[in-house]
């Protein structure tokens, strides 16, 4: 595949929070039209990576290119122009609590287009229909369940038919049924819109079922990658630990600490 086939190109990406390195050199290529999962334990820098791709953070070193343009070198106006073609689903939906379901989904349309109100209504109802919540249009976000809120947020994220959709932990805190629904929606919407999806998650089983490619991140580096069928049978110790949900392995169960014997016998206090 040529460079043009990849919507997102990440090269040697580094990011430090103050003195603490979070990402230590990531290389990644996201092909157009695919659903790609980025997996790893909590706090491994997955969400940071997503924020770097969307331009919310600036990298310490390295570049993120979206459609050939370096995100970190863009002006504010150019970045906003790009973001109109990006959709992002936040971990808990991040719906506007003072707006109804309908107004939430209509929000990007009203802000970015001059369409007449009846056309906005039709478009909004179509997006809500796509996530199966056309009947819930008049509800307020506070009355929705977690799964429904996430679906409304998904409808809002795709309101402007984005070319790139990003998902931050879309499965967290959902019951198995809602989880399956969201997983299916992500797949369907991606294919229907001809978009590219990047999904940050630690839900292995659901991801293996629906994505095209998986990157594993640990301690700020890509440690493994591959298609779901390769991942399932992988001999790589990290992937094996993650997929089989083992407590200890390459990812240590213990937070780095001084030697236990030394600590308990008082040697460390001297």
């Amino acid at each position, binding site marked *: 595949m040529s460079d043009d086939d990849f919507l997102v190109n990440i090269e040697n990406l580094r990011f430090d929070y103050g003195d603490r390195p979070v990402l230590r050199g990531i290389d990644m290529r996201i092909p157009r039209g695919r659903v790609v999962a980025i997996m790893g334990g909590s706090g491994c820098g997955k969400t940071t990576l997503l924020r770097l791709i969307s331009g919310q953070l600036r990298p310490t070193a390295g570049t993120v290119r979206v459609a050939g343009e370096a995100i970190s070198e863009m002006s504010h106006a150019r970045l*906003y122009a790009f973001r109109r073609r990006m959709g992002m689903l936040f971990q808990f939906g*991040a719906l506007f*609590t003072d707006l109804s379901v309908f107004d939430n989904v209509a*929000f990007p349309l009203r802000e*970015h287009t001059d369409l007449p109100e009846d056309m906005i209504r039709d478009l909004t109802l179509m997006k809500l229909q796509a996530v199966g919540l056309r009947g819930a249009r008049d509800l307020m976000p506070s009355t929705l369940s977690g799964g429904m809120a996430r679906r409304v947020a998904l409808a809002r994220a795709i309101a402007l038919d984005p070319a790139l959709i990003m998902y931050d932990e879309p499965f967290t805190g959902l019951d198995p049924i809602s989880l399956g629904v969201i997983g299916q929606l992500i797949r369907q919407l991606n294919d229907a819109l001809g978009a590219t999806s990047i999904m940050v998650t630690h839900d292995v089983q659901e991801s293996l079922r629906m994505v095209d490619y998986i990157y594993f991140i640990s301690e700020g580096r890509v440690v493994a990658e591959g298609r779901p069928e390769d991942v399932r049978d992988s001999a790589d110790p990290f992937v094996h630990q993650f997929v089989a949900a083992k407590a200890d392995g390459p990812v240590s169960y213990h937070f780095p600490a001084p030697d236990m014997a030394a600590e308990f016998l008082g040697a460390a206090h001297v």
Partner: protein
Amino acid sequence: MSRVLDMLRFLGGQVIDRVWRLGRASCFFLAVLMKSGAALLRFSLLFREIWFAGVLSLLIILVSGLFVGLVLGLQGYEILQRYGSAQALGTMVALSLLRELGPVVAALLFASRAGSAITAEIGLMKATEQLKAMDMMAVDPVARVVAPRFWGGVISMPILAMLFSTMGILGGWLIGVVFLGVDDGAFWSSMRASVDFRHDVWNGVFKSVIFGVAVSLIAVFEGYYSEPTAEGVSRAITRTVVTSALVILALDFVLTSFMFKGMS
């Protein structure tokens, strides 16, 4: 010795922190002003915030204004009639309300009613990632969320202060004329004779506009820069109320000393 050093260090840290916040608030103020175009042109946004800051504060402002007027009427009558000048009650009530009590007390009430609500709203939007989501939709949160709230407060404040003064004068009239028997004509005519529109009414309105800018800026600033946690938001709300009260009283002193200097 180390005690003294600790105290000095504490003092230095506090001063640096304050100066830093002041500088940041000034930059934020400029940003809000520069991004105010949409807020002022889209009436639906502005109306919602006038409703939120102004209409919802109406009840507390009207009731407090009435009571302050009643108390001024009682106390003023008691003092003035000792000198046989009870008919000056209208002048006293109107001048104290228009020049000081109206703008200041209305601003203090506004800070605790509307200012705290604005901080809470923006702080919670930040804590639940709504501001970030907006930014990701290529909608600037300062232009869409902060600026309308700021202007809603700035527009509401002088209206509330005028209503406060009006209710207070009516309260003073109620006590003085209806209950204590001050002559109705003398009450109004002595008031009209000594209250000057430009010096008293207009200066009071001007004061309340300044207070409106200060309180609204503090409220949106504290909300926007609050820590995105439940505890952080509650601390930001407290800071809004306390800082607003101090700033209102300090500004009032400065404005008064400029406005009423050398007036006879």
